[in-house]
């Protein structure tokens, strides 16, 4: 343990960043060791929002446990539910109807857009620009309205269930998604005008928080953080699930490896997600939205693993089953935890002011890290 504040034996200043620092989204406690203004070491202290979700899941049935995962990475709750549902389906060997698969992928991509938008607003706010936050929330509200109408909730959805989705899409769903796509295309250009091209923003991002491709692999970073350093890590391409194989989309790769590259990966992913939605919105097949499953689900004895690409990276769900109605053990491989572990490597050696830029582009969601 380091002392709370003061200097250590080498004469370096030790300060606490958080848990209530306004620049940290969530309650993350960073103990930063400084030499002057240069960061020597960063030690993240976790556990402020630990709810022992993995242990809770052991006492819940296979139908029940996925609702808790909406509360892990609350910005991509659909995708978390999706991972759980697919892992259970793998064990049950249930074939999901094509209509349900398309609906699942569509809500996933809408969630990804909503998540990246919130990140974009919060990121700009971290760097001192306040208006982008309102711009981002204005468009995010449209997605929330679509979700509210179809799923009944705005944040903790619990819409994707083992076998399909909980309810069929609302009659307005396709119309509203179409109008959202049209609106959003012009708004991304506005985002670029407002923030991406801004000279102050660029100077604070370029060359800050650099990480090499080798280090990305050795720290286990996934998602936009890995792709910004040129590492192929898109699960939708590498291990395609549902209908992603049949879709036309590119894996976004940047080679910069710095904060600006991570920023650009997410901005380009917004356009890519819109592109995926465009392909699907008119092609939702008719049919069942849920496969017939038994009232009480029992997975056969064994181990099951399923990974998906959330807005932050690879989420893995690992279930050990003893053949009962509840899992024997569940482990979630959360993307935020691995990405945070690289923070010391990314920000050490830089200036204290750059720490916020590096941290913002890692897109940390603390409940996902602590679980």
């Amino acid at each position, binding site marked *: 343990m380091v002392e709370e504040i003061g200097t250590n034996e080498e004469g370096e200043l030790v300060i606490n960043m958080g848990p209530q620092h306004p620049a940290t989204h969530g309650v993350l406690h960073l103990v930063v060791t400084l030499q002057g203004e240069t960061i020597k070491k960063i030690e993240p202290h976790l556990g402020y929002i630990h709810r022992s979700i993995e242990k809770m899941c052991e006492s*819940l049935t296979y*139908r*029940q*446990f996925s*609702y*808790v995962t909406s509360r892990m990475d609350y910005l991509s709750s659909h995708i978390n539910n999706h991972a759980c549902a697919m892992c259970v389906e793998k064990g049950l060997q249930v074939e999901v109807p094509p209509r349900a698969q398309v609906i699942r992928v569509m809500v996933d991509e809408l969630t990804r857009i909503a998540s990246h938008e919130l990140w974009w607003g919060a990121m700009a706010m971290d760097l001192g620009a306040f*208006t982008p936050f309102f711009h981002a929330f*204005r468009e995010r*509200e449209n997605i929330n309205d679509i979700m*509210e*109408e*179809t*799923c*009944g*909730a705005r944040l*903790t959805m*619990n819409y994707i*269930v083992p076998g399909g989705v*909980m*309810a069929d899409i*609302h009659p307005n769903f396709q119309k509203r998604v179409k109008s959202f796509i049209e609106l959003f295309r012009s708004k991304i250009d*506005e985002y670029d*005008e*407002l*923030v991406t*091209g*801004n*000279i*102050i923003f*660029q100077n604070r991002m370029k060359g800050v928080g650099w990480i090499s491709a080798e280090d990305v692999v050795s720290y286990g970073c996934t998602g936009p953080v890995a792709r910004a350093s040129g590492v192929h890590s898109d699960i939708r391409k590498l291990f395609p699930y549902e209908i992603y194989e049949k879709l036309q989309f590119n894996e976004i790769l940047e080679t910069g490896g710095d904060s600006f590259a991570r920023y650009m990966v997410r901005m380009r992913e917004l356009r890519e997600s819109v592109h995926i939605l465009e392909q699907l919105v008119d092609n939702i097949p008719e049919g069942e939205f849920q496969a017939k499953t038994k009232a009480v689900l029992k997975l056969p004895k064994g181990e099951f693993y399923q990974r998906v690409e959330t807005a932050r990276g690879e989420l893995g769900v690992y279930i050990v089953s003893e053949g009962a109605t509840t899992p024997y053990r569940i482990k979630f491989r959360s993307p935020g935890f691995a990405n945070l572990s690289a923070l010391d490597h990314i920000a050490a050696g830089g200036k204290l002011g750059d720490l916020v830029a590096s941290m913002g582009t890692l897109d940390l969601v603390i409940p996902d890290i602590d679980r």
Partner: protein
Amino acid sequence: MFITNYIKEVWGAVKSLAKGMKLTGYYFTHHKEIITQEYPDNRAELVLPERFRGEVVMKHDEHNEHACTGCTACELACPNGTIKIITKFDISPEGKKKKALDTFIYHLELCTMCNMCIEACPTDAIKMAQNFEHSVYDRRQLTKKLNRPGSKIREGVE
């Protein structure tokens, strides 16, 4: 050479700032589109989607009859122990004993609005209501009895 580059850089910087400010200026002068809602004042015209999950209610018809058989499927489906069902035995005119609902206890303070109980219900007796203003001064008021006093099961619901 250095001077030209320097001026170019400054010019580019000023241009990028002006571009952002142009957008801000546009929104400052074009404020036709109202995005925010004045929540407590717009209660009268506030319409929530029919699927919005606010709280669990039991459906009663005009004869004060519901469709709940007391099968406890919702109680088993609930992940948090939000629902507690107390059953009793009705004696039918023929003298047969029949299981029936006595009290449907719903703990709103534990509910996470996951919709699992509504999915599980075989007779479609409960549904989600759109009311979301649940603040009270005393936590005990959040424990609700969903079947109305004097209500009984509808004829023909098994």
